[in-house]
C-alpha cells in the first residue's frame, strides 16, 4: 500500500510542485497518473522513489515511512520498485540480455540465478529471440519491453512507469499498457504516469489527475467520463490501436510473484 498524507513539496527555487496531497494506492492496484507538464507528476514519482523528500506530510510504502527511512536503507527499498522510464534508459553497448542482467548484477545477484531469471522475464515480454540483440537494433516498443523486463528482473512488487509510451508508436503504446495490465493481474501494483488521455480512456482503471500540484480528480475512469460527453472513445481507440495478439503469460499472470519466482528457479522447464 502506498499512502500520501498531507504531502507538500516546495523546491528551493520556490516552485510549489505538490500541494497537500492525500491519496492511497492499494496493493495490487493499477493507477494512471495524468497531468499536463508542470502538474507535479515527476515530483510525485520522485517522492515515491525516495529521490526527493516532501517538505511536509508523510509517505508510507508498505509500512516503510519514506520520510523517516535511513539513507542506507534506501537502496534496499528501491529494490521493491521496478522503474520504467520514457527514454527506456537501456545501455547501448550491452545486449538485451545484459541490460536485464545488469539490474540484477548491480544488487549482487549470483550469476547462476541471473542465468535462470533473465530468460524467464524476457520470455514474459516476448523477447526471447532478441536476447543477443543490442538496443539500437530494436524498435521503440521492443526497447520499452526490455526496460519492462529489467524492471521485473528483481521481482519488484510495485512498477512505476514514467511515460512509458511517450516514445513509442500508438499500437505499441497499447501493447505496453496491456503488458502492464497483465503484470497487474499477477498482483503487481502498477503506477503509470502519462499525459496521453486517449490511451487512458482505453482502460477502465483508476485515474488520478494532477493539475498545478493538486489532485483535481481521483478514481473516475476516463472511459466513463468520456461516455458522458457523447463521444464513443472505445471505438475511436480500437481504430487507433490494433489489439495485439494474445501471448502466453500464464506463468506469470496465474500465480503470485512468489510462484513466478519458483517458476524462475526451475527454469520454467515444467
Amino acid at each position, binding site marked *: 500500500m502506498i499512502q500520501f498524507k498531507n504531502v507538500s513539496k516546495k523546491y528551493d527555487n520556490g516552485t510549489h510542485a505538490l500541494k497537500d496531497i492525500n491519496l492511497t494506492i492499494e496493493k495490487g492496484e493499477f493507477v494512471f497518473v495524468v497531468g499536463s507538464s508542470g502538474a507535479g507528476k515527476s515530483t510525485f514519482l520522485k517522492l515515491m522513489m525516495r529521490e526527493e523528500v516532501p517538505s511536509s506530510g508523510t509517505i508510507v510504502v508498505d509500512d516503510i515511512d519514506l520520510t523517516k527511512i535511513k539513507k542506507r536503507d534506501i537502496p534496499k527499498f528501491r529494490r521493491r520498485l521496478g522503474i520504467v522510464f520514457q527514454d527506456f534508459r537501456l545501455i547501448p553497448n550491452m545486449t538485451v540480455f545484459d541490460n536485464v542482467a545488469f539490474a540484477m548484477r*548491480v544488487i549482487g545477484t549470483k550469476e547462476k540465478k541471473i542465468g535462470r531469471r533473465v530468460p524467464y522475464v524476457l520470455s514474459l515480454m516476448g523477447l526471447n529471440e532478441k536476447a543477443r540483440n543490442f538496443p539500437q537494433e530494436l524498435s521503440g516498443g521492443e526497447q520499452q519491453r526490455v526496460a519492462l523486463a529489467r524492471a521485473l528482473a528483481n521481482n519488484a512488487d510495485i512498477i512505476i512507469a514514467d511515460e512509458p509510451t511517450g516514445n513509442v508508436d500508438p499500437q505499441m503504446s497499447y501493447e505496453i499498457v496491456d503488458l502492464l495490465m497483465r503484470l497487474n493481474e499477477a498482483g503487481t501494483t502498477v503506477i503509470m504516469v502519462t499525459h496521453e488521455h486517449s490511451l487512458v480512456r482505453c482502460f477502465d482503471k483508476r485515474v488520478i489527475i494532477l493539475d498545478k500540484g493538486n489532485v483535481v480528480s481521483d478514481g473516475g475512469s476516463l472511459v466513463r467520463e468520456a461516455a458522458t460527453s457523447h463521444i464513443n472513445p472505445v471505438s475511436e481507440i480500437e481504430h487507433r490501436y490494433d489489439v495485439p495478439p494474445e501471448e502466453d503469460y500464464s506463468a506469470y499472470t496465474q500465480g503470485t510473484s512468489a510462484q513466478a519466482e519458483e517458476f524462475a528457479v526451475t527454469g520454467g522447464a515444467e
Partner: protein
Amino acid sequence: MGNLRYLTKEGFRNLKVNKLMSVASVTVLFSCLMLIGIAFMILVNIQSFISGIEAENVIMVYADLDASDYEYMALGNELNALDNITSVEAVEKEAAYEEILAEMDENLRIYLSGLDENPLPDAYRVTVTDMSRFENVVNEIKKLDGIERVYENSSLAKQLEGIRDSVTYISLGIIILLLIVSLFIISNTIKVTMFSRRLEISIMKSVGATNSFIRWPFMVEGIIIGVIAGILATGAVWAVYEFALTSFTSVLTGLGSGVQVSFLDYALYLVAAFVGIGIFTGIFGSATSIRKYLKERKFVELED
C-alpha cells in the same frame, strides 16, 4: 567473491571505455610521480653526500714537529680525556707519510722518497660524538699544549647542512604539490568516466544498487591508473638516475664523494611508495568525485 570479480572487471571496462582519458591520466600521473621520484633521489643523494662529509668530519690534531714521543703520547691522553669524543686515533708520521706517498703520482713519489726527512708531524684523528658541540671540542683541543695545528672542516659541514635543509624543504614542497596535482588528475578522470557512464549510474541507483557498489568500479579504475603510473614512474626514475650517475660520476668523485647511492637500495621503497600513492590517489581522487556525484545527481532527471 563473484561480486568483487564483477566489480573489478567493471573497473577495467571503465578504463577501456575511456581509453584516451585513461592514457592521458596515466601519462600525467606518471610525470608527476617521476618528478617526485627524481626529487626524492636528488634529496637522498645530497643527504648521503653530506653524511659522507660529516662522517669524515674528524678533527686532525697535529703535534708540534719537535715533540718527543712522550709529549705525543701525553697529548693523546689529554685528547682522550676530553668530553664528547668517540675515538682518538694516533696517526704516526711514518704511516701518514707512507699513505701520502701511496696516493701520489709516481714521478712525484720518486722525487719525494729521495727526501731524508719526513716533513710530517705526528698527529691524532679525533672523532666527535655530538656534532652540535663540535666547535666546543675544537676550542678545547686548541687550548692544549704541544699542538702545531688543528685541522677541521666544520664550516663546510655547516654550510652543507644549510643546503640540505633547504633541499629537504624544497623537495618536500615539490612532492606535496605533485601529490595534490595527482589527486586532481585522478579525480578528474573519474569525473569524466562517471559522466560518460551516467546512464548506468542512474539505472544502478534506480534498481537499488548501494552507493558502495556503484563506487567500487570507479575506485578500481583509479587504483589501476595509479598502479600503472607508479610502476612506469619507478622504471623511468631508475633509467634517469642511472643515466645521471654515468654522466656525473666524474663530477661526483671530484667532490670527494665515494658515496654514490645505488638506485636499487631505494627501488623497493619507491615502487611501494608510488604504488601506494597511486592507490591512495585512486581511492581518494575517485571517492571525492563520486561522493559529490552521487549526492548531487538525481536519477530521475525528468521535467515536470
